[in-house]
């Protein structure tokens, strides 16, 4: 693996930074916080125009067919501006799941629409009493002929409020191993018996929702891939989601360190810039150590998706653990360095701090990932 970027990758990264800095200003991000959809169709269309929606979608389905590492460069830049909206849900979650689980026909149908910016989609996994593994998928289904009636509730579903399509993990078979008997339903949010509630969470840049199913009826043709065979595709998606999130968190951490360093150079107290005091300087140095280390693991993990699939799940858990911890700590340290203004609503640091907290609790928390790694390393003995 080479950590240096190709000239095409440099270009992609630079143009992403420019576009995002111009369009996702603090004012705009805050406006989207107030918008229950979290995005505006005109902006979505502009992003689609850049080709980002279909970055990793194969060319035959209207995408650019680039690698996950390329997508990672953009996610990194999005993290720097704490970008609001359903990009991650659509382009990482739904796209990866459809790519892995979908039939040829489903891929042609959905991926084309995602790539062209005509479909916003998300994935609903977790339920009350969050369990990160397959045991957590309990939403029940009752079969009536060719139809399934769904009953239950999904929680912490990102961007369900703005989605045209929600892919929902449902237990279609009981009395089997946890990883079996899970099906992925392609849910139109307008279906009768589907109710969506926006959750009042800290980070309104990434809207989380509760999605309830009150005996909503779906036909067996509205299942992604094969009935009962959904879990392994979810696992693949989760690995990539954790890596994508790590890159986003890396971007956030990098930006937060810049905020801290700039402020430490200009804020004068006791006649000196506060950055000349070691209590502040050493906090910044510790942040740099962790940000640079996060860069090593997050970029490596992104590369493994296409470059070394045997290592990818391990790399994903390492990245999520390390980078997640870095981001939350760096945002907290920066808040402290900023003093009173850091505690205000006006300063942007709270956007980062809240995103960090939300991200760490997404797709398996630290305890979960460390346990995955422990059991992997224990087996090595």
């Amino acid at each position, binding site marked *: *693996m*080479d*950590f*240096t970027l190709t000239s095409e990758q440099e270009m992609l990264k630079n143009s992403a930074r420019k576009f995002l800095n111009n369009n996702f200003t603090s004012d705009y991000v805050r406006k989207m916080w107030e918008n229950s959809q979290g995005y505006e169709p005109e902006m979505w269309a502009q992003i689609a125009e850049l080709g980002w929606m279909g970055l990793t979608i194969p060319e035959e389905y209207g995408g650019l067919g680039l690698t996950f590492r390329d997508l990672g460069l953009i996610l990194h830049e999005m993290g720097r501006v704490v970008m609001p909206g359903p990009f991650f849900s659509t382009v990482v979650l739904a796209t990866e799941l459809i790519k892995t689980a979908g039939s040829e026909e489903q891929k042609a149908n959905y991926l084309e629409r995602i790539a062209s910016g005509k479909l916003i989609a998300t994935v609903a996994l977790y339920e009350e009493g969050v369990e990160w593994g397959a045991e957590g998928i309990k939403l029940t289904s009752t079969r009536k002929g060719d139809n399934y009636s769904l009953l239950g509730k999904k929680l912490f579903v990102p961007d369900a409020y703005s989605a045209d399509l929600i892919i929902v993990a449902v237990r279609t078979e009981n009395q089997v191993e946890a990883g079996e008997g899970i099906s992925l339903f392609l849910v139109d949010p307008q279906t009768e018996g589907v109710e969506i509630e926006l959750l009042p969470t800290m980070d309104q840049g990434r809207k989380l929702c509760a999605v309830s199913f009150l005996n909503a009826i779906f036909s067996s043709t509205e299942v992604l891939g094969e009935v009962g065979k959904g879990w392994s595709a979810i696992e693949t998606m989760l690995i990539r989601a954790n890596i994508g999130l790590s890159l986003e968190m890396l971007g956030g951490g990098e930006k937060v360190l810049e905020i801290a*360093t700039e402020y*430490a*150079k200009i804020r004068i107290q006791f006649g*000196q*810039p506060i*950055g*000349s*005091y*070691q209590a*502040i*300087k*050493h906090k*910044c*140095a*510790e942040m*740099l*150590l962790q940000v*640079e*280390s*996060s*860069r*090593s*693991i997050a970029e*490596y993990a992104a590369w493994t998706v296409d*470059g*070394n699939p045997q*290592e990818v799940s391990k*790399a994903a858990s*390492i990245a999520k*653990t*390390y980078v997640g911890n870095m981001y939350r700590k760096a945002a907290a340290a920066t808040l402290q360095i900023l003093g009173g203004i850091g505690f205000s609503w006006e300063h942007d640091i709270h956007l980062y701090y809240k995103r960090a907290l939300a991200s760490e609790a997404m797709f398996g928390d630290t*305890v979960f990932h*460390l*346990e995955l*790694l*422990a059991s992997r*390393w*224990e087996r*090595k*003995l």
Partner: protein
Amino acid sequence: MNLTMNPDDQAYRAKFLNWLSENIPAEGTSAEAKISGDWCAQAEIFRKFQRKLFDAGYAGIHWSKEYGGQSGTLMQHIIVTEELSTNYPWKMFDGLSVGLVAPTLLSRGTEEQKKEFIPKILSGEHIWCQGFSEPNAGSDLANLSTSAVRIGERYVVNGQKVWTSIGHLADFCILVVRTDPTVGKHKGLSYLLVDMKSPGVTVRPIKQITGEAEYNEIFFDDVEVPFDRLVGKENEGWLIAITTLMFERIMNEISIVPKLQQTLDRLIDLTSNTTRYGQAMIKDPVYRQKIALLQVELEVMRLNQYRNLATLLKGEMPGPEGSIGKIFWSELNQRMQETAMEIMGPYSQLLKGSKYAEDNGKWAFDFLRARGNTIEGGTTEIQKNIIGERVLGLPKDTVRRN
């Protein structure tokens, strides 16, 4: 983590491992050797082994043939260093000579100095020590007062150095001295290569926290040093000293990652073989989490190191970012050792020689030795100053600014 390595490099590694299996010295058992206080005996084993490495073409691989090297690649050097770190069970005494002295001479020394000293470093004939710190000059290295006065074709050196690792075994010393006391403290320093057998050099071992003596104090009493043993220009020694310190932070990482992996593997064994409350401690969720986190950090450090090496492989000089690695490995090693102590409970305090001691006291020894990691080679606080000021561009504090 397997980064893709090209087939030539893989073949080189295999060839070296094969050579190593036939040439690892047979003396002593490794467990004994690792905690043996008999430094002189270890140094002799090292010299003989280093000579074999040299004769077989495995020393100074990436350095020019002119200076006793092999004109090979840096990657080959990295491979050999990693494998020695994993497989050579005794102490290596080349950390300072190959790691610091030779690269400093290569980038700043005269042609004669390179030709005279580098081949002898590579063949194991010369072991070196680093005479930087003094009683009143530690973190504030430039405050040092050991003096050198030029008289004709030689310098006459007087003063004292302290905490000099392997000073009692070394043949030569890189010595930073004050040649002009009338100018600012960074401006009047010079960098000398001193023969430890010169008349007037007295070395006294200092017993340290582990009970053994690895470091020393050195007294210089009218010690004569020929003028051609000056590196760089007179009064420009600070620049040379900084060069040495940059190499110290970067190059040592190559052998440290495999060592930390060994420590972690032993820690996993220890946790699996220790029972508490009727079950192996590896089954205890608290320890599973702790150990997994240590492995996470080690994997991250390994990748950091690959990134650094990629920079070096492009031929760039190590920069102040090297301080990141220094902080990372020293603190990680301390966390690993502390975890081992927790797992052993009351057994953690037993030293070599007790039949109850785990691994014949190696854990206890390494735990104590690890305290030095965040002090030697520049303390963690100093590394953070370097990162803050030279990487992030934060201002110096007023005292050091003036």
